[in-house]
């Protein structure tokens, strides 16, 4: 019995980050931004990564997405996905995972889209890179993806440029792009920070839906513990490059061990009418 269970667990394990350390070398004194970061992400779960600006949460997320390629930094540890150490493998191996198995969305949906390219081309791009499809098949998939993120008029949107869309629509386009190859993991780096509160709620609802319908695991990065509480089953709290607390969101919320976490919880605005 025990054996079967442990096999199940390891089967479900998508991503395992061990002892991730990131150090910048571009100043006279090297500065470490992430220390001993550990993370396990299982199929279909939503894990939150919370902390103030500069706590190292975005750096960790970029490392997991394979987007830290600067030469002036030192990376140690291991990011294991499907038997591949994404931290140290070559670019070509990494590229097969990026946009295909792991999708990523970012904070600023306007600047994250290419300003001189139509939406269709940008959403279609991961398909062209990772799959061998005919033009018609690609068109169908793009249309589906745009419908999947609940864009009202996908046929119009695909022929528009990013500056013609609203912030919420742009983030939906970003999500459609990241999800078009049905990745197993979606990394969402503060995807709602630049949006209005109402739009924010819609995007969170959409992420929940995608997670439920397609079983995509989501690593959700935010400084907003309220959002994390609403969305994530598990949470990691980061401060100054360290994970200071982690566990089930419920437990962390109801019984925070560290003073920092307690302060973060206190910082959630409560509306009393």
């Amino acid at each position, binding site marked *: 019995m025990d054996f079967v269970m442990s096999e199940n667990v390891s089967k479900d394990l998508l991503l395992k980050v061990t002892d991730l350390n990131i150090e910048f070398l571009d100043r006279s004194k090297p500065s470490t931004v992430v220390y001993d970061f550990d993370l396990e992400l299982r199929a279909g779960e939503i894990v939150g990564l919370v902390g103030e600006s500069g706590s190292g949460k975005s750096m960790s997320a970029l490392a997991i997405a394979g987007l830290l390629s600067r030469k002036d930094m030192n990376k140690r540890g291991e990011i294991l996905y499907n038997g591949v150490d994404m931290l140290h493998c070559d670019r070509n191996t990494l590229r097969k995972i990026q946009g295909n198995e792991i999708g990523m969305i970012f904070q600023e949906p306007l600047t*994250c*889209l*290419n300003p001189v390219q139509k939406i269709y081309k940008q959403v279609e791009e991961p398909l062209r890179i990772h799959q061998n499809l005919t033009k018609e098949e690609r068109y169908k998939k793009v249309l589906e993806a745009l419908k999947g993120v609940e864009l009202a008029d996908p046929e119009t949107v695909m022929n528009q440029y990013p500056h013609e869309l609203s912030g919420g629509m742009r983030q939906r386009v970003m999500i459609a792009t990241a999800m078009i190859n049905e990745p197993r993991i979606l990394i969402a780096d503060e995807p709602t920070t630049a949006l209005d509160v109402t739009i924010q709620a819609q995007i969170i609802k959409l992420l929940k839906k995608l997670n439920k319908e397609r079983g995509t695991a989501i690593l959700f990065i935010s400084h907003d513990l309220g959002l994390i509480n609403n969305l994530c089953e598990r949470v990691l709290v980061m401060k100054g490059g360290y994970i200071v607390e982690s566990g089930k969101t419920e437990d962390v919320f109801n019984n925070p061990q560290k003073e920092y976490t307690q302060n973060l919880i206190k910082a959630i605005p409560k509306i009393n009418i």
Partner: protein
Amino acid sequence: MKYVLKKLVTMIITVVLVTFFVFLAFNLISGDPATSALGTEATPERLAAYRTQMGLDDPVVVQYLRWGGNFLTGDMGTSYSYRMSVSSMISEKIPVTLIMAVMSFLIMIVVAIPIGIYTAEHKDGVLDRIITVINQVVMAIPPFFSGILITLLFGQIFKLFTPGKYISYQDDFGGFLGYMFFPALAIALPKITMAVKLLRTSVLKEVKNDYVRTAYSKGNSSRQVLYGHVLKNAFLPVITFLGMCLTDMIAGSIIVEQVFSVPGLGRILLTSISNRDYPVVMAIIVIIACLVLLVNMLVDVLYGFIDPRITPDD
């Protein structure tokens, strides 16, 4: 389409304004045409009759319209010094100057764009550093001096062309192009250095943008990111500069024409200015101004095609 039309209308209005002011300026500085035509001994009655006959008593605007109408039909007046029609004097020079400008423009594009992209792609590499140093040096050399150096190097040492032996395009078009390559190169050199520097800076600035990170997150290779995303954005500021270069090459090749004894518009402009041959000077200025405006409009239109944020719907 609406955008193109709008730019076209703007250009026509500018052409009218520019030519009007040129006309006005030459009317003011050239003194009394009646006196200069009939001499200082002419009687007031004869002067008055000449003025009426030539329409010199009409309001300036009417005179301008008459002159403009004539100009459009190819009648650009008569040269004071040569007593021949201005149009016959300059019609053969226009292709010379234009071809030289277009050639130097093509040389600039063919050389500057690959080097600019290469140096940006291999920032701080050995070749990038070498090119940057060469760039700084060449940038400091004015075209007339690089013209002299080119004459010395390619004309005297390598004997690729005979300095000063201009080949007319009517006689031997191939030989003409071969000869014109060298003045065109002299004009292009300093522009190449600036274009390389601008393109390199522009690419390096673009790669810092968020959309580049997005492109990588989709699984693009560095080359795909550069050619598929970065370049189109990086070209936007460069296009403005290239347009300015082309106008500069059309309008500002006077000195290089002198160095290489090329009988283009610049050369005849210089002689006409020293001869106070106002009709010729005026015609050349108007033609150059119109060409410059035309190039500017084309750049604007091109810009509108490349950058979707520019095309105004209102």
